[in-house]
Structures are given as C-alpha cells and as structure tokens.
C-alpha cells in the first residue's frame, strides 16, 4: 500500500468549502420556502405570479397534508405517464437520429418509475436504447421535477413546526419556486462551468471519427453539460452516457470530478440550515449537520482505506506493480484515489447515484460502505427527502430518549404523540421491507441465479442483487451489477419499478402527515423538563440511534454479502 496522505488535501478543502457555504445557502433556501424576500424577487416574482395564475393557484391557498399529497401525486403521476408514453413511442417520435426503437412495456415502466422517483437506476444502455429526445425532453423533465418534489416535501414537513393552522403550504408554489429560485439558475451556472472544464454541449449528436488503426468510431455528443449539471444538482444521478460520470466526456478531469462532487453536496448539506432558518432557531441545524458529518467522514475514511489495500483475492498474479489504488479495475486514470472515492461516497450517501467507477469491481469493504449509506438514506440523503428522513429519525430518537431520561417528548415546542411515532416508524420500516421481501422473492422464487464457481463469486452475486434493491428502495440509482446476474428481465423491471415507487411515495406521505400533525398543534413554552435538542449530547445520541437502528435492521443481510467476502477471505 502506497497511499500518500498529502493527496487528501483537496478532499479536505472541498468539504470545508461546502461547510462554509452551507449555512449561507441553507438560509437562502429557507427564505425561498418561507416566501420571504430574497435576491431576484424583482425579476422572478412577476414571472412566478403569472405562472400561479396559469396554474389556477395562489401562495395563499395553503394545503393540508392530505391535499398536498394529492397535488404531489397529480404532478408526479403526470410526469410518470408522460415518460412512460414517451419511452414506449420514442421509436416514432421526432428527435431520434440514431433510430432507437421504442422500449418494451416493462423497461418503459421501470425507467419511468426510476426517473420520476429521483432514482435514475437504469436497466438499459443509454447509447442504443434511449433516443436523443428521450434524454433531452423526457428524462431531463424528470431531473427537474423529481428534485423539486423532494425540496417541496422538506419545506412542507418543516412548516409543520412553525404553523398552527393545520396546513403545510402550497405544493405547486413550492415546486415552482424550487425550479425558478434554486434548480434552474444553479444548473445554468454549473453547466457552463462543466463546459469550461471540457464537457460537450452541442446539438450535433453523432460524430464519426477515423482512428489511426483504420475503421470508424462513433462518438456520441449532445447537450451533455446541461444534462449532467441538473442531474448532479438535483441528486438524480442519471448519466447522458451509460458510463455515467466515469465517462471521460461527462467528467473529463480531476477538476470536473471535484466540481461535480461540490454540486452534489451543495443542497443536501445546506438543507439542515434551511430547517434552522425556517424554524427560526439556527442552532437546531447543528445536531443534523453533526450526525451527517460523523457518519459521512467515517464512511469516506473507511472507503479510501479499503480501496488503498491490495485485493487479497488476486493471489495468483505476479509481475504487477500496484500503485496507491489497490483496485484499478473499473476505475478511471485521471483522478487520485481520494478524489475518486470522495465523489463516489458523496454520490451514494447523498442518494445521487452517479458513478465515476464500476461499483461491482471495487473492494467488498467499499461496497459495504456504500450499502450502509443507502441503508440510512439520510446522511445526508437525497434532495429534501434525505433531510426529512433524518428528521423522522430525530422524532423517534427524541421519543425514545425522552422515555429513557423521563422527559416529555417534545420537539421545538411541539409534543410528539403516538401518531407521530406511528407515521415515523412506518416511513422508516418501508425501506427494509421493500429491500428484503423482494430480495427473498427473487432468490427463493428462482428469478435470479446467485451461484458462482466459488463462494467469493457467489457472495459477489448476492451483493449485486442486494445492492440493486437497496439502491431502488433508497431512490439512489447506483448499481453494482455483477457480470453473471441478469437484471434486465421482466421480473427485475416490474419489481424494481414497484420498489422505487413504494420507497418514494410511502415515506413522503408519512412525512407530510407528520408535518400536518405538528401544524395542528400549539407551541408549548419550553420548561425545565424540555429535552435540549441543539446540544452536543443530542447530536451524539442521534448519531448512535441512527447507526444502531440501521445495523439492527441490515447486519444479517450484510453478513451474507460483502461482510462475508471480507471475513471469509480468498
């Protein structure tokens, strides 16, 4: 192992920069979703008001949690239907210069569910199974609206803490402002920065090159920078190319890799501060930021350490010089081990799901670290919903902690009742259920053959299916894809599509209902029995609560996959 510790400097600087910007940007986000005056109002307010009139709504029509969910399902249902139709008909629709055929019904279902739910898990090869128009028009629409939906859910749930009228806000207004104030302006800037770093942005799609050794080579271009920019910013993780952010065209240099990492981190790391701003107690952001940082930094350190070690399964190969990266198979050359690892860990922990490496080829330890991030799905988790998942864990932790020390379970002056705990438990338990039940069905029902020539190979196939269902349930989108596991069957398309829809909309409904419950309650003034939630003690408690709950739920299944490979050895 020859990992150079000084190569970590840019990783540390990047995390520091994000933490320096996050309080400021989070406060901006908070002001946007509380309809407070922010920069850009002069230009954008008239535009937004015109949009509200076209929609037939108004910021003063605040919705109950149930109505908010109806609105959310209406818009997301419309997006889903649009994508489904588009993918089925892409062969005959315009904007198809490479003559891609329409998708089969099961693949179209999986893809439409995947993009609507902010997952962007793909069962196809982009270059031959998705048309140009499907990428730019259909998929890109979902990149914007699924991210905006996540932000809206967070805004609605948080409003419960500051309202007493039983409403959580107007979904259409929240989505509109998420697009006009956050996603669109930042995507434009991000896309132009990516172009300056070498990413293509053109409407000529196919270029034929004539290599030195004869023949021809087809190079696909397109508006790649704009697609990748919103994909990373909105924690979608979809790639213009099937190689995603490992593709040199989408991610040409170490610098673009770091910039992409920054774009992915920006909103998830800022959302706790938006919460602090919205509940008007900025100190309340820190337990969440602390929990996220502890889990994330430990995960990153472990990931780098696992990747720097030499692969023990490669005993029989001599004459190879191993550099700082012990697992160069399925990795790209142009960034260092620590930079590549930072991107990948951020991508999975923020539920983006973009890859700059082949996860199936990394160390079993690295795979386990990534799985853990998708099990918690809240450190920091995806756009909006990652934070609200952590908020659910906080509600449960306060309830449990309150019982342990004999304090009244209340949070920010709102009492936590059995109803809150029931909804929180439902949202938290949907995740393991929608991973482990389909997994058992797939294995026991004979829909997938996990057996390999050795135990190591079988464990790898096991990890692949576990990773797939976990990624879909967490709305992550990254894939481990073992070579001998075929996940493009009707079973995997239908099961995967249903898992993504369940893993997205059931927790969202629970989050909105909890927000609605809080919104009906009066604020209790803090007394001597109040649990102080902006303290270091609570931060540590929340961290341990999160880790122990996750470990209890998932440790057995880890033991059969990556943990088995680590402990079992070659």
């Amino acid at each position, binding site marked *: 192992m020859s990992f150079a510790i000084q190569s970590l400097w840019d990783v540390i600087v990047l995390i520091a920069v994000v933490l320096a910007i996050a309080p400021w940007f989070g406060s901006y986000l908070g002001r946007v979703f509380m309809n407070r005056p922010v920069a850009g109002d002069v230009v954008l307010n008239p535009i937004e008001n015109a949009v509200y009139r076209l929609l037939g709504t108004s910021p003063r029509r605040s919705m109950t949690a149930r109505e908010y969910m109806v609105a959310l399902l209406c818009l997301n249902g419309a997006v889903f239907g649009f994508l489904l139709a588009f993918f089925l008909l892409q062969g005959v629709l315009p904007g198809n210069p490479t003559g891609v055929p329409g998708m089969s019904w099961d693949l179209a279902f999986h893809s439409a569910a995947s993009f609507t739910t902010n997952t962007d898990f793909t069962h196809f090869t982009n270059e031959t199974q998705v048309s140009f128009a499907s990428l730019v028009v259909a998929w890109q629409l979902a990149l914007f609206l699924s991210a905006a939906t996540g932000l809206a859910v967070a805004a609605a749930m948080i409003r419960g803490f500051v309202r007493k009228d039983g409403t959580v806000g107007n979904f259409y207004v929240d989505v509109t402002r998420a697009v006009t104030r956050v996603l669109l302006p930042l995507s434009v800037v991000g896309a132009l920065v990516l172009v300056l770093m070498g990413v293509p942005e053109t409407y000529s799609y196919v270029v034929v090159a004539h290599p030195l*050794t004869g023949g021809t080579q087809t190079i696909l271009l397109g508006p790649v920078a704009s697609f990748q920019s919103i994909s990373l910013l909105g924690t979608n993780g979809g790639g213009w190319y099937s190689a995603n952010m490992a593709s040199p065209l989408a991610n040409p240099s170490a610098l673009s890799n770091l910039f992409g990492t920054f774009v992915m981190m920006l909103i998830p790391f800022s959302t706790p501060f938006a919460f602090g701003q919205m509940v008007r107690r900025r100190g309340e952001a820190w337990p969440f930021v602390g929990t996220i940082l502890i889990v994330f930094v430990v995960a990153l350190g472990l990931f780098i350490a696992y990747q720097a070690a030499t692969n023990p399964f490669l005993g029989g190969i001599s004459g190879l010089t191993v550099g700082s990266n012990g697992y160069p198979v*399925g990795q790209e050359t142009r960034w260092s081990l620590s930079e590549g690892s930072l991107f990948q860990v951020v991508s999975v922990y923020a539920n983006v799901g973009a890859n700059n490496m082949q996860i199936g080829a990394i160390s079993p330890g690295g795979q386990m670290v990534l799985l853990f991030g998708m099990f918690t799905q809240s450190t920091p988790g995806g756009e909006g919903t990652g934070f609200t998942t952590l908020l659910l864990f906080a509600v449960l932790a306060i309830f449990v902690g309150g019982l342990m020390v004999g304090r009244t379970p209340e949070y920010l002056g709102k009492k936590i009742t059995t109803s809150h705990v029931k909804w929180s438990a439902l949202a938290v338990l949907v995740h393991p259920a929608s991973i482990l039940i389909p997994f058992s069905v797939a294995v026991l029902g004979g829909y997938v053959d996990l057996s390999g020539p050795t135990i190591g190979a079988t464990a790898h196939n096991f990890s692949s299916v576990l990773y797939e269902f976990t990624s879909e349930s967490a709305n992550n989108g990254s894939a481990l894809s073992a*070579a001998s596991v075929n996940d493009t069957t009707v079973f995997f398309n239908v099961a995967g599509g249903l898992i993504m829809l369940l893993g997205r909309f059931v927790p969202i409904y629970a989050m909105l209902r909890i927000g609605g419950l809080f919104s009906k309650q009066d604020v209790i003034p803090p007394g001597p029995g109040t649990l102080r939630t902006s303290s270091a003690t609570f931060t540590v408690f929340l961290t341990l609560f999160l880790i122990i709950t996750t470990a209890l739920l998932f440790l057995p299944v880890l033991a059969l996959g990556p943990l088995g490979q680590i402990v079992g050895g070659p």
Partner: protein
Amino acid sequence: MSARPPFPQLPPGPSEPRVLPAHTPGGHVRASAVLLVLTLLVSGFAYPLFVTGVAQLIDPSAANGSLLYYQNGTVAGSSLVAENLSAPFLFWERPSLTDYNLLNGTGTAPGPSDPALQALLNETLNYTREYGEFTVNASIPFWFVAPSASGVDPDLVPEAVLIQIPRVANATNLSVANLTALVNAHITQPLIPDLGVPYVDVLRLDLALVGITGET
C-alpha cells in the same frame, strides 16, 4: 443549569394565513398539467438551448467534444475517447471491455472476489508480455492491464507509457531518447500538486508520433 436561554429565537416572519379554499379535483388536474407543460418548455428546450448557445461562444472546442483532426481535416477522434491503438508502432491504451465502442455501453468488470477477474487479468498480462516486447521481467503497472470503468478511458499513467518505449522504438526506428522526450512532453501534470494525477492522453501522443513517422 445552562445560563443560556433555552431557545434563541430569530424575529418572527410574516405568517401566511390560509384564506382561500382548497383546490377542486379539476383544479389539481389543471395545475399539474400546466406545470408539467411549462417545466417541459424550460427544461427540455429553453435550458439546454440557452446553455448550448453560450457554450458555443465561450469554449467551442470543448462544447463540440474536444475533437482531434488529421492534417487534412478529417476527425481522428476525441481527446476524451480512447481508440483501439494496439499496433506495434503505436503506444497502447488501457484495455477496454467494450472494444473502445461507445455503442457497447460500459461492459461489466468481474467482481473483486470473482475468479473471472484473475483469469481476465492473466489473459491481458500474457497478451501484453507476448506482443509488448518489454524489457525481460519488467514489472507492469496494474493500470496497464486493468480495464477502465468507461471502456474509453483515454489516459494512462506515465509509467505504463514509458514501458512501451522499447517496442515502439523497435517498430518505428526512432531512438529511445527521442521517444522518451516525446512521452515526457505529453505528460499532463496536475495544475496544483495532488489535484488529480499525472497522466498521458494516449491518442494525442500517438497522433504526434504518427506525425513524425508518417506510419499508419
């Protein structure tokens, strides 16, 4: 007990009382449909067209795919896409699971504990040893036999390029000193130390090499 007040409060913001009735079912359908269409116009058309317009102004070379050309103007490839350059008189790229063809997707590398990985690496290593004409018993950088993630990684660590010099010198009649100078001139160093790694863009290097030898 702590001397600090329990909840430091910011000044209250304006409240947003609900004064209008809930939407009708038809109202929801209309709002969703109109919002979808408006977002579609922005995300699917205005946004990529605007960014493309500005990109073509600020950096046309990058915006059009960092293409490399022969002297007669034909496209030789992109500096961001590897080609199959496995000829004796050229420097080779990293191996590809997709035959350097973007239309083949990315391919899937065998897992770390899969015996297929060892088999694949041994196969590549044997081919490399047989046709590479390296100095006898030279240790080969792992990167040189490890297939990339994208299948079209155009870059190679400098050590993996330098060990190919004996073969290229043999096939082209150029001196080892000249080739070493050529390779060293094509090593891209990080802008700031340890921001990225030093690497060689092999297609650029080979285009320069062919420019000298005239051999194709």
